[in-house]
Every structure is written in C-alpha cells, then in structure tokens.
C-alpha cells in the first residue's frame, strides 16, 4: 500500500467506481424487478380469473314452441297433485321434434333432446302452475340451453368455428340453425345467484354456498369478537406479569401461525366426535373458524388498546373510577374502531378459509339453501373447490365467477376496514 503513489490510488478507485456503480444499478434493478414481479402476479391472477369467469354471468336460452297437450302430459286438469306427475319431458321432446322434423333414429333423437337443459321440465311446470288455463294451448317458451350448447354458443363469438367440445357436428348444425332464426338468446344468468349446487352446470348456483358462508361467519363473529376483545382487555389492562400470562401470550402467538388444517382436525375430533355436533353444519364451521381467527382478533385488539394513551386511564382513575369503569367507560370506546378493523380483517380471513371446513364435512353436495346453523351447508370457498374438481368445461367459468364473487366480498371487507381505520383513527 505504502509504495503506491496518490495518483495510482486515485486511478484504482476510479476504475473500481464504474463497477461499483454498475452493481448499484443492478441492485436497484433487482428491487424494481421484484416489485414488478409481484404486481404482475396480481394482474395476471385477476385478469385470468376475470377472463375465465365473465362468461358465467350470461346464459344461453333456446326458444321452443310448446303445446301443453293434456294427452302428452297425461293429466286432464291442473292441480297440485297432477303437476307433480305430469310428463313435461314428453312435451318438450315433442316441441324439439316439431322444430327439427327431419331427425330420426334413436341416437340422433337423444342428441336432439340434449339441446335444452334437463331442468327445462321444471320451467314448464312453473309456467303451468302460474297459469293453469294454458293447458291445451300453445306458446313460445325460452328454456335454458344445455351447458355444452351454452359453451359452444359463447365460443362462437370469438371465432366462426367455435369450440365444439362434446357437441357433435349434428348438434352444432342445429344450434347454428336456431341461432340464424333468432331462437337463441343470451340473458343475464340469474340462476347463478338464485340456485344451489347442481350436477348440471346450467342449473348450478352459489346461493346455498353464500347463505352457508353468511351463517358460518355470523357464528364466528358472535363468538370470536366478544371472546377476543375480553381476552385482549385482560392481557392489556389486568394481567399481572406472571407465568400464566406469559403462557397465554406464547400460546396466542403460536396459534396465530398454526396451519389452518390442524384446526380442522381439532374440530373433527372434539366438536364432531366428542360432542357429537352435526356434521357439515355452519355451527361447527363457525366454532372452528372462531378458534382460528381468535389470535388475529386478540392481537389487533391489544394493539388498539395499547394505542389509547395512559393519560386517559390515569385521569379516570384520578376521578375515582374503578378499573372496570376505566376500561368500559373510557378505554374501550376509544379502542373500538381499531378492534372493529381487526374483527373485519379476521372475518375476511375466515370467509376465504377452506381447509379446516373440509375436515368437518362441509364438502357435502348441498342443493338446498340452509335455513339454520345446524342444517347441512357448504361455504363459498368449498363450493369453488368442488366445482374446480368437476370435469365439465362450463364449470370452469362458474368456478371463476364464484371466485369473482368471493374476491369482491373480500375486497369490500378489506377496503371498509381500511376506510374505517382512516376515518375513526385518532392520533394522540
């Protein structure tokens, strides 16, 4: 070192400086690339889901001229009992044969009949029930198309060929003919929001799952919010520094990081096998999710309590308030906004949770909308999981649409949590 002249040193530094600046730029670039990667992932995820799912909000209908022929229906008057036995399928088949009279042969006919949804007879029954005088008359009725036809029709918008999938060439020709004569239309898919699950994609909806999610969340909120707030109050305002308190703290922090599926095992072993609570019920789901969200709510409630300055407590104490009065009258109201924010975030977490609910049997195939917290039910994320497993192509778009509904709920919840915090938060 000592035999280098000052000029040499300066020259060496200058030479290294270029490479050091290059490294600086590279490092910075890596940082920007990482952020870009994350943002790209968000964009890709959302655009993928939206492009896959937007089709599910539209349903193709087929118009048929049906005759409520008493002979075909096998009834001669309309009342509650005959409506159950009436053969609406025959009427629809007759209408299809009348529209395409050239069809003959068994397998061709079977293909023809599969143009409309297998739920079409129910549409007809509802119409006849509403207007009994229609018996013996003829009218034009729109029926939901079968899911394969629906997929084919939707793909026709993208390319002239379309995606045929399971639709045969023959069926495609029929569909084109219906389309040309204006006997096909697309409408907003209300079925998706009013029906429960179904094996037929065109009849499947998310209503049962939504109600199940709502009931489960109600149980969760009713239990986890009071318990979480009470636990936070004890730990923040009352607890003496001793072993028991330390143990509770370690437990809460650990539970916050226990995999959710383990809570499902707990629910299965304790609530279902030991206490013999009903399987698949929102009650049990709510209990499991309560245990899972409790750490989140306790931790955020404690943070809210901590942010209330001690001077408030001291002032209240100075006026002769007891500890309980200090907490209930002064600290709790001031900490409430923070606690509510924590509760909303906890609920959002519970709404998206799937794995523990699989354990307690909320994966059953549920068609009916649950009416109470002990009815068998499923929840939205589990419904997504079930549909994602279904092979029908039409279920892919319904899965994505259900995901869109779930994500919009989550976005609303999280945004309102942020807004609530911004609006009500006080800086001391």
């Amino acid at each position: 070192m000592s035999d280098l002249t000052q000029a040499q040193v300066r020259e060496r530094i200058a030479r290294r400086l270029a490479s050091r600046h290059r490294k600086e730029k590279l490092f910075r670039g890596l940082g920007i690339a990482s952020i870009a990667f994350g943002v790209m992932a968000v964009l890709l995820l959302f655009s993928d889901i939206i492009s896959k799912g937007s089709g599910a909000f539209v349903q193709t209908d087929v118009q048929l001229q049906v005759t409520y022929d008493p002979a075909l229906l096998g009834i001669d008057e309309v009342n509650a009992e005959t409506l159950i036995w009436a053969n609406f399928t025959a009427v629809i088949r007759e209408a299809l044969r009348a529209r395409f009279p050239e069809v003959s042969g068994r397998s061709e006919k079977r293909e023809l009949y599969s143009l409309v949804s297998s739920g079409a007879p129910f549409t007809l029954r509802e119409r006849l029930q509403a207007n009994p005088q229609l018996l013996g008359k003829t009218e034009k009725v729109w029926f939901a198309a079968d899911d394969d036809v629906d997929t084919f029709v939707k793909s026709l918008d993208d390319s002239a060929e379309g995606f045929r999938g399971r639709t045969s060439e023959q069926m495609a020709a029929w569909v084109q003919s219906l389309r040309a004569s204006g006997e096909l239309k697309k409408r907003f898919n209300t079925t998706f929001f009013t029906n429960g699950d179904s094996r037929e994609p065109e009849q499947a909806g998310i209503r049962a799952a939504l109600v199940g999610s709502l009931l489960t969340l109600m149980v969760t909120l009713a239990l986890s919010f009071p318990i979480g707030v009470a636990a936070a109050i004890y730990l923040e305002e009352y607890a003496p520094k001793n072993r028991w308190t330390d143990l509770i703290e370690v437990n809460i922090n650990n539970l916050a990081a226990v995999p959710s599926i383990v809570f499902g095992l707990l629910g299965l072993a304790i609530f279902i096998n030991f206490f013999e609570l009903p399987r698949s019920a929102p009650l049990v789901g709510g209990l499991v999710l309560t245990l899972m969200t409790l750490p989140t709510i306790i931790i955020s409630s404690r943070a809210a309590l901590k942010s209330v300055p001690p001077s408030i407590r001291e002032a209240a104490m100075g006026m002769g308030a007891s500890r309980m009065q200090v907490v209930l009258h002064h600290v709790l109201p001031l900490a409430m906004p923070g606690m509510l924010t924590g509760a909303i975030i906890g609920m959002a977490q519970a709404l998206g949770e799937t794995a523990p609910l699989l354990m307690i049997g909320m994966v059953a195939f549920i068609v009916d909308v649950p009416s109470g917290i002990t009815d068998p039910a499923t929840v939205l994320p589990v419904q997504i999981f079930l549909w994602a497993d279904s092979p029908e192509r039409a279920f892919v778009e319904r899965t994505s649409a259900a995901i869109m509904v779930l994500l919009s709920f989550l976005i609303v919840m999280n945004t309102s949590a942020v807004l609530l915090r911004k609006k009500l938060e006080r800086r001391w």
Partner: protein
Amino acid sequence: MQTPTLFALLLLLVLIAYGTGFSRAVAAARGRGGMRKLAALPSYYGTHTALWCGLPALLLLAVWLTFDEPIIRALVMNGIADKPDSVSGRELLYAQIQNQAAGSLFGEPSAQVKAAAERLLHLRSGARWLQTALVLILSLGLGAFTLLRFSPQLRVREKVEKVFRVILIGCASAAILTTVGILLSVLFESLRFFHTVPVTEFLFGLQWSPQMALRADQVGSSGAFGAVPLFTGTLMVSAIAMFVAVPVGLMAAIYLAEYASRRVRAVAKPVLEVLAGVPTVVYGFFAALTVAPLVREAAAAVGLQASSESALAAGLVMGVMIIPFISSLSDDVINAVPQSMRDGALGLGSTHSETVRKVVIPAALPGIVGGVLLAVSRAIGETMIVVMAAGLAANLTANPLESVTTVTVQIVTLLVGDQEFDSPKTLAAFALGLMLFLTTLVLNFIALHVVKKYREQYE
C-alpha cells in the same frame, strides 16, 4: 321444553332480574334521600341480580347438555341383557336403537331393540323435564335470594367486578384451551394409530399406500404407512416456494424500505398485500388450471416430460402467495435498523447498495431469518394449493416436474368423505396432523424467539 326455548326464557329472566335489581336500588335510594346513600350505582345492583339469576343456571345448562347423551346411552345399554362383546358391535346396536327411536329404522327390529328404543325415548323426555325444572329453579331461586339479601350497604360493585374479571381470565385462557385441545385430539388418535403401525415404520418407511384390506386375499391391499414420500414431497414443494418467495420478497422489501419514493411505496405496498388477502383456494385453482399447463408446455418446449400435476406448479404459486408475507416482515425489520448505521456507512463513502448489503441486511438478519422461518412453517402447512395442484401419488422423487404429494394433501384425502373412526386409514391422518403440528410449532417457536431477541436489541 326444547333447549332454545329454555335459553330464550333464561335470557328473559335475566333481563327481568336486572330491571328488578335496578328499580329496587332506585327505590331504596329515594327512601334514603339520594343516590349517594347507596354503596354502588343502581346499575350495579341490577347487574348483580342478573348475574346470580343467569350465570349458575347457564353453567348448569352447559354441563347438562355435555353429559346428558352419554349418561342416557349408558343407562339404555345397561338395560340390555345380551350385548355384543366388541365395541363396534355395541356402537351398531346403539345406532339401531337411536334410529328406531327416531322412527327411521328400515326393516323389523328385534324385540330387544324396540324395548330399548322406548326406554331411550322415555329417558330423553324425562331428562328434558328435569333439565327445564332444575335450570328454572336455580335461576329463579338464586335471583330471588339475591333480591332478598338486598341492602343499600351491600358492596355490589366489587362483587360484579370480581365476576367480570373471572370472565376476562376465562376468555384469555381460551388460547391455552385451544392448544390443549389440538394436542389432545391429535395425540390420542395418533397413539391409537401407533398401536397398529409402529412409529419407526411410519417415520422411516418408504412406501405410502393407505389402503386397508376389505378381504384377506385382496390385491394390493397390504396398506403401507411409510410417510417418507410425504415428507420429501412437502419439503420439495416448500423449497420451490421459498426459492421464489425469499429473493423476490426480500428484494421488494429492500426496494420499498430503502429506495422507493413515498408515492411508489403508497401504491406498491398495498398491491403486494393484495396477494396476501387472496384465499388459498383461488391460488389452487390458478395453479391447477393456468400455471400447471404452462409448466407442462414450457417443459415440453425444452424436451422434458412434466406430469399434469407437478410439484413445480404448486411450488411456484405457493411462492407467489408467500411473497407479501416475507416482504412485509422484512420491511418491518429493515425499517427498525437505526438510521445512524446507514449514515455511518454512507459517510465512509459506500454506495447505497453497499450500505444495504454490508450494513443494513447484516443488522436486520436475525429478524429476516425469523420471518423466513415463519414463512417456511406457513408453506409446510399450506393445504389448498397442493390439494388442487400437486397431486395424490406418493412418489419418492427429486424431480420437480413429477407429481408429488404432501402431508396436508394426505390428511385431506384420508378424512374427506365418509370414514369409520377406528380404521388405521383415518387414524393415520391424525398422526400426520401431529407431525405437522409439532414441526410448525418448533419452527414458530424458534422464529418468534429470534424476532423477539432482535427487537430487544434495537429498542
């Protein structure tokens, strides 16, 4: 009376008790010339009465509801002359009796079952009467007793506050109860599992095919419970995830904390947090339907064979899910490094990146390591992504393009659907759950400890 009705009635009684206690105190105060003659505010007298009226009765109801069915069952089973010897036989018999009592038994039951079912119905209605009577007597009796003992000198506030405090302690202890509940539930079933399958075979066996034989001569029914393929599968998927998440998350955190302007930070941070809020089932769907086909095509383009459910697809998507977890934890610890350390390094002539690499990161390292450990435990316990995208085949392989299975996937597949509760197949799920719980517990414990130590260092 049905339990919900009884519960509603009890609530009504509590409200009445509150009102009575309150008005009693107000009346007493008026007789003596003002509130200050009372030992506590009227609302405390009301709460005191309501607590005595409601709490003991509620506790009795809870205990009753927990124990009535097992006791009734024991009574019914004791009344039966010739019981089957095996546990499952007795379970079956009792299920028959219950169905007969509910009127939903198919076929003609034996006389013994019929008699037992009648006895069951009789006991149940008797139990319900007794429950209603006891709860109401307890509630009304204690409520009336409290009102009788009313006196303006009674220091009810202290009493109410004591109860309040006990309730708070109870709620805080729920966390401990949960941990104990988890431990007991997985431990007991695991011990039963280890009776049939030795621990060493479970931990070191290389074969996993949890099929139990229905017949003795069934093909491929040996039932192997060697969990090593599951452990390696879990490790591989988690390793891929960490390979994505750690560099990206860390660099994103460094950029946000050290370089980004306030405006960039205000936009980029919430966008990254969105990734944390997306439900895992959505990631699973994305991995299975979008990423897995891409991986397969990419592999085919370079001449490799990838299975349709590959560890790589699941791991990549899981990595994306964990990015915000690592970035926000690292962001916190990097911000906690004192500014003076940065200033010192910059003053000595180092570039910004040299400051970060040689001063800030080493100072924040314990916190970062803690965050990474927490992320690992999360990756190991993640369920939905691997269930939907990693497959079920228990391959012992090091090739990320093949399908592997993980501990969580096997828990789900073993427990979803109908299952009988003493077959080794379902018990195996609990043994896997025990392994999962212990592993994550140790990881969390170390991570929390490291983070805590680190925080103390700079506070």
